[in-house]
């Protein structure tokens, strides 16, 4: 090991960052209160019944289905719309710089500031209380457009020209040439879109009208209002909400990091 002190510090920091997750999991598989004193580092009498309680005491399968459907729509929407938008931004056209500036400046506006117009548009489209309505504001995100844009710009221009000479149209250039060469950008889009959609709370809270359309974060808030305590079942629910996002991130982690740093250097 070249840098033992550096590694030791990194291990300590990692442990400190993972400790809250460990504590949530430990509480989820025991009957201990999260604030119990003295705390027990190792779980005593671990059991899976808190997860069973969550599954049956609230309509968890329904919340899970809703979250999965909305996240899948969001991920597909992001991949398609962001790729198309990013490709357009790599092409020369009048006002391209203005469009880029507009998009960049829009990133400064917090979602809460646009939530009323977003709601009105969704209502006009008749999409309130629907899966498409739940996914609508996240179908395309500016940061992901720029991730695709930088990935597409790193593809040699000659390759695109060759594809065009071979008779490929613009859609097929995106699908057959650019996307297969931009896997890290795809992974980054998938992870970010999935996690943003999965964790979204405010938008589903506003546009859902009945409990059957609620997603997991809303279910968690509802469960918390029923189970006003700090014991196992609540944390079992937290684990069940967190697990898919963590799994997707772990699966895509290496490509995700490559995607974030792609285009950082040129040449």
């Amino acid at each position, binding site marked *: 090991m070249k840098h033992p002190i550096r590694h030791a510090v990194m291990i300590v920091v990692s442990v400190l960052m993972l400790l809250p997750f460990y504590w949530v999991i430990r509480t989820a598989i025991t009957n201990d209160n999260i604030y119990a004193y003295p705390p027990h580092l190792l779980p005593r009498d671990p059991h*899976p019944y808190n997860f*069973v309680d969550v599954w049956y005491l609230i309509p968890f399968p329904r919340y899970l289905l809703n979250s999965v459907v909305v996240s899948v729509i969001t991920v597909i929407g992001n991949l398609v719309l962001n790729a198309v938008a990013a490709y357009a931004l790599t092409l020369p056209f009048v006002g391209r710089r203005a469009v880029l500036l507009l998009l960049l400046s829009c990133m400064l506006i917090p979602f809460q500031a646009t939530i009323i117009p977003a709601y009105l548009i969704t209502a006009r489209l008749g999409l309130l209380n629907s899966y498409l309505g739940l996914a609508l504001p996240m179908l395309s995100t500016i940061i992901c457009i720029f991730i695709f844009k930088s990935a597409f710009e790193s593809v040699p221009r000659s390759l695109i020209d060759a594809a065009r000479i071979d008779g490929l149209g613009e859609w097929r250039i995106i699908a057959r040439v650019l996307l297969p060469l931009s896997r890290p950008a795809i992974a980054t889009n998938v992870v970010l879109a999935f996690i943003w959609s999965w964790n979204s709370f405010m938008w589903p809270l506003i546009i859902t009208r009945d409990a059957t359309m609620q997603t997991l974060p809303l279910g968690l808030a509802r469960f918390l209002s029923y189970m006003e305590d700090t014991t196992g079942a609540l944390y079992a629910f937290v684990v069940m909400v967190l697990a898919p996002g963590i*799994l997707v991130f772990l*699966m895509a982690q290496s490509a995700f990091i490559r995607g974030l740093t792609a285009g950082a250097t040129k040449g």
Partner: protein
Amino acid sequence: MTWWRSRWVVVPTLLVLIVLGWNAYVWTHDGGRIEGTVIDARGHPVPGAEVILYARSFLTNDERARTQTDGSGHFRFAGNASHALQLQAQAPGLGRSDRITLRLLFAGEDTKLRRPLRLGAAS
């Protein structure tokens, strides 16, 4: 690397297999049967004892069914649809048992009590 060895194929496939396996297990074990034995303070089986089944609603345990033990002190409930139960036995002259909590891995899981309900244990 071949496409089927990709983690994007392996992990979802494993998850699907686990879910299918678990559902197959649930499907074959969800008869809602609960069986056990009632004994007296000296450990002898008690025929004709009444056993009460409580099922957990959100925060309370409500009585759902009653049955009687047979000649060898065994009892059996069928059609349980809950995942969190309590059981208590009682017999005239022998008192009551403790109300024991029974937690199941899924609603309606077939189960046998590991320890008998002992009458006279409840204060």
